[in-house]
């Protein structure tokens, strides 16, 4: 999905009834430069850090420029250990926050791709009448009231999480990290996978798969990715209705995306584009469906031909089947 533009952001704010003032200035990459142009406003500027922990979770830390943010201390308070926080790499900036270098801002969370970024706000924001942030680009700054900023956050389904970054908090054996509650569980990790997909599959994991994911010492070493992936196709091929719905959903989604760009295409070319885009994947899925149905028939046939031994065969089905293929020739 494309990045939200500054214009789109501003019109969204207007739509919420927010009156903000946009100050234009030359491109600035640091808070110092920024203050040269709008320091006269008397409002304290904000500094915004885009961070990443060792497990790949992303954080947006937004604080007053005058607040000291000690990354080591913050990392400990979040329960990430002593050097657990680093600056996030540039490609994450592009892919997740969708803003250029030097433009990190809480407003970037308007992009759906940043759904899983954890937002931590300076508690001092609460007693500031006005706040200053970049509106997704660094050639201007928005001046917005604290209350309106909260309205914006609410409109993107975020509740403000305030942190006293300067508080001295000891974290040790008997003192648990006080900010650990902000850190989300690994299962909801940010990933570039389709969000609908990962939600559907985590809901559909069988108990066996979840169990082996939770006990890393069990013999069945299931790599973490597998827990997501296994659920999705099985669910579809077990149930014709689900399968058809999936096919129709994919088709409609692909159509809607193309239809937006209507000027370039004719009817047949749209149709061909869509077919070539989703056709191969759907064909594979259907083949899997067919193979599964055949397999079930095959298994039923085997058991049928066992006749009287059906009861014991039912109990030890897998060993019977494996036994036949191991002993070899059945002709």
């Amino acid at each position, binding site marked *: 999905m494309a990045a939200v533009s500054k214009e789109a952001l501003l019109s969204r704010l207007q739509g919420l009834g927010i009156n903000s003032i946009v100050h234009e200035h030359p491109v600035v990459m640091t808070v110092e430069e920024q203050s040269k142009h709008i320091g006269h406003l008397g409002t304290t500027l904000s500094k915004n850090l885009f961070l990443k922990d060792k497990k790949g979770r992303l954080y947006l830390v937004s604080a007053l420029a005058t607040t000291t943010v000690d990354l080591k201390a913050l990392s400990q308070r979040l329960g990430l250990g002593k050097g657990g926080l680093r600056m996030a790499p540039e490609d994450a900036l592009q892919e997740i926050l969708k803003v250029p270098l030097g433009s990190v801002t809480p407003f970037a969370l308007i992009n759906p791709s940043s759904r899983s970024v954890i937002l931590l706000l300076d508690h001092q924001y609460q007693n500031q009448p006005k706040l200053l942030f970049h509106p997704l680009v660094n050639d201007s700054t928005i001046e917005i009231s604290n209350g309106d900023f909260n309205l914006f956050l609410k409109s993107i389904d975020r509740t403000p999480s305030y942190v006293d970054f300067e508080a001295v908090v000891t974290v040790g054996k008997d003192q648990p990290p006080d900010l650990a509650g902000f850190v989300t569980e690994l299962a909801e990790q940010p990933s570039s996978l389709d969000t609908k997909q990962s939600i559907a599959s985590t809901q559909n994991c069988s108990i066996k798969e979840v169990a082996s994911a939770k006990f890393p010492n069990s013999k069945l070493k299931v790599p973490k*990715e*597998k827990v997501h992936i296994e659920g999705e*196709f099985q669910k579809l091929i077990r149930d014709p209705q689900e399968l058809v719905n999936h096919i129709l959903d994919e088709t409609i989604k692909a159509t809607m995306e193309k239809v937006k760009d209507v000027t370039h295409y004719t009817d047949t070319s749209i149709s061909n584009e869509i077919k070539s885009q989703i056709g191969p994947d759907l064909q594979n899925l259907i083949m899997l469906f067919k193979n599964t149905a055949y397999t*079930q028939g095959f298994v039923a046939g085997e058991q049928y031909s066992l006749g009287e031994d059906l009861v014991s065969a039912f109990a030890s089905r897998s060993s019977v089947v494996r036994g036949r293929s191991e002993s070899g020739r059945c002709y």
Partner: protein
Amino acid sequence: MAADVTRDNLEESNGGEEQVITPWEVSAKDGGRIDYDKLILQFGCQKLEESLVKRVERLTGKPAHPFLRRGVFFAHREFDKILDNYEKGQKFYLYTGRGPSSESLHLGHLVPFLFTKYLQDAFKVPLVIQLTDDEKCMWKNITVEESRRLARENAKDIIACGFDVSRTFIFCDFDYVGGNFYQNMIRIAKCVTLNQVRGIFGFTGEDHIGKVSFPAVQAAPSFPTSFPHLFGDSKDVHCLIPCAIDQDPYFRMTRDVAPRIGFHKPALIESLFFPALQGESGKMSASDPNSAIYVTDSPKDIKNKINKYAFSGGGATIEEHRKHGANLEVDVPVKYLSFFLESDEELAKIKEEYGAGRMLTGEVKLRLIDVLGKMVDRHQKARAAVTDEMVDAFMAVRPLPQMFS
């Protein structure tokens, strides 16, 4: 035997400096690129002309697979005869295989299977897939149990490529060799002397006897009576074998034997080697994890491997690149895109822009990472949905009544 290029011949004629292509070793001359035209000449097979590709499209009524259109499958032996017979209503069956030497497959392994699946769907013909667990047990010196286990694991990856169970018979040598199959093996073996296999496969007096008779095992599936449950006792069914060109020696031997025992010669359709990430001079090797993208790789792994190890034909600096453009002959990302990017148009555009220096290596790599990521993701999902029962079904010795419909 026409143009019998054996290991001995190669080394004699050029003092060991030529490119070496055998089923177990592939290396180009002086670490450069493999000369496929020379290979065709040396081996004595035919180039797969554009006209044949068009003919395939006409006969099957659908666009040819990208591998055909882009010359990935570039050589053949009597593929035109297969098409002649097909037009007359005479069907054929497909035969391909894999030596299950490691648990993880890389993209190079998938290439023949993806192409075979296309052939199966386009021509609506049956397919037999041989898993040579016995070969790997002997050559890689792993236990019988381990090689059988690997064979079953590989079968799952193969099934995940999307083969149709109502037209496909997968078998492991350790399970299937015997009966009519073994009878054919002996018929074949009687026609090949020890000296001949020494020449073709490089056996020496120190090699154990298991290896020496193995070629007959790989040859037997080329003959329909090896599968009585599929073809009965009919000798008249033709066989088409899609494979990589380094398998040519095995099948030259088979083609030589066929008429002597009353069978049609199997036809071959042969592919280039899938280039290793580090460049064209070799093929992907299971022993070097960074030479290949594996089907078990995560999106992160793929991104890393392409960015770090994929050999770039781009300029050393941006200025140089913009001035001279990229060397498409050696650029690995573009080669990979030629294999896996669906759209001919987009591929042509990328080649044009990149070749002129307007597009940067990073952009090409990004596109490749996207394409491979989707492919691998799809494969992993499909593989996860393949059950042990499904493998049993594919491997059951059963008739396939729908195999030609």
